[in-house]
């Protein structure tokens, strides 16, 4: 007679497990964390943070949610104040400025108690991303608000942002139903989801799903909170020492060094490469003439102006301030005299054309090398108060014209 084999561990466990209790547990566990995510979304997990340094932004595998960014604004700005919401990229984030010399701190001092400045700039973010989305979704809570963005004259591409980097917040806000109705933006969003190129279509489909999951199931809200407060679960190359990757991100400080403590920093910069980028930007908008001069390309400028206008819902434009900043003189001086002239003409026309869309200031025309980090665009602590002063003057002017302040 054949001897029966003893039951395996899985069989033993299977006999012990009550299927109905298991399914109830799965449902309770999942729904419990969805509710916990809703709760976490209403907390300012970035309390006391003056800017989003690399370990609490995408560089550090943290993708702040719309809810957390909104809570950060609410925690830092009373609705009785005029909210100055700083978006844009690393220039407005203050890369090149140690946290104690951050330009938005100077901006707050310049503007005084009637205003509240919140820095929601992120490295590499486009003007329509991150801070712009938060500003749009908080429009009713903060009727007196000015949104500041920055970039080049050609920084406007699509109103839905880049699906690979910061576009995720647009799709999250869209899934949450918190955006203004904007027929043009919606048509771009739908076109993106039906894009003829399969790879692009897939990227947008993924980010659409991601937005839905984050907005409805609060997955990032909960796990970002866990990562900030208790335990970070994703390994990241920027954490030093690497074995500390699991430590809660609230323990990591803003480690932006002061570039002015390194006087040899410009020697390591490829000035020719940077100058070629600057030259290329102005060549795209001012074409050569057979006589050796240059003229603005009317189609290109009209395209840029119209693209900038169509990237924002119309209601947002009057309270948007765009900062066009000059490149470092160490780089501009490497251009030929003719190219320098074309470079200046590009800024002049950029100011004129973009000012038809929203308020614009051009900053940094007469700065010196020490006002810049060791690249063409970022400012050191020496330029921070200068930028704050110019931006503050424009913000005050806008506040009067928008009726936020008496004339």
């Amino acid at each position, binding site marked *: 007679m054949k001897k029966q084999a003893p039951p395996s561990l899985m069989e033993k466990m299977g006999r*012990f497990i*009550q299927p109905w*209790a298991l399914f109830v547990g*799965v449902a309770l*566990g*999942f729904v419990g964390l*969805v509710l916990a995510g809703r709760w976490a979304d209403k907390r300012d997990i970035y309390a006391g943070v003056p800017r989003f340094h690399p370990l609490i932004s995408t*560089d550090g595998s943290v993708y702040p949610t719309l809810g957390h960014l909104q809570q950060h604004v609410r925690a830092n700005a009373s609705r009785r104040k005029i909210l100055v919401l700083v978006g844009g990229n690393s220039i407005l984030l203050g890369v090149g400025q140690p946290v104690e010399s951050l330009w938005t701190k100077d901006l707050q001092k310049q503007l005084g108690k009637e205003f509240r400045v919140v820095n929601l700039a992120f490295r590499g973010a486009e003007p329509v991303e991150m801070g712009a989305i938060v500003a749009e979704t908080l429009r009713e809570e903060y009727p007196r608000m000015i949104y500041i963005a920055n970039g080049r004259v050609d920084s406007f591409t699509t109103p839905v942002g880049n699906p690979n980097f910061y576009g995720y917040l647009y799709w999250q806000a869209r899934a949450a139903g918190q955006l203004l109705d904007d027929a043009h933006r919606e048509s771009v969003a739908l076109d993106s989801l039906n894009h003829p190129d399969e790879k692009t279509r897939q990227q947008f489909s993924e980010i659409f799903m991601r937005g839905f999951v984050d907005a409805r199931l609060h997955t990032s809200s909960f796990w970002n909170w866990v990562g900030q407060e208790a335990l970070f679960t994703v390994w990241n190359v920027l954490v030093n020492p690497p074995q500390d990757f699991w430590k809660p991100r609230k323990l990591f400080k803003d480690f932006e060094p002061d570039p002015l403590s390194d006087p040899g920093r410009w020697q390591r910069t490829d000035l020719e490469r940077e100058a070629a980028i600057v030259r290329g930007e102005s060549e795209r908008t001012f074409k050569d003439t057979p006589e050796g001069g240059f003229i603005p390309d009317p189609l290109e400028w009209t395209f840029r102006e119209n693209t900038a206008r169509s990237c924002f819902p119309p209601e947002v434009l009057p309270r948007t301030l765009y900062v066009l900043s000059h490149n470092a003189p160490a780089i501009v001086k490497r251009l030929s005299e003719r190219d320098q002239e074309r470079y200046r003409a590009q800024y002049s026309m950029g100011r004129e054309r973009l000012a038809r869309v929203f308020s614009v200031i051009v900053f940094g025309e007469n700065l010196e090398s020490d006002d810049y980090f060791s690249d063409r665009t970022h400012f050191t602590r020496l330029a921070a108060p200068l930028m704050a002063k110019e931006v503050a003057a424009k913000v005050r002017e806008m506040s009067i014209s928008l009726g936020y302040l008496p004339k």
Partner: protein
Amino acid sequence: MRRWIQHTVSVVLSLALGLVIGAFFHYVLYRLSLPIKPFVYVAF
């Protein structure tokens, strides 16, 4: 009596295992939404 205790323990452990699986499923959705490589800023 012993059978009743065994049943209760079985229900509690099944429920606990379910809670862990549910939480894990929530975490998997979070991890799936993260890009494989983080967007590390170089220069713009």
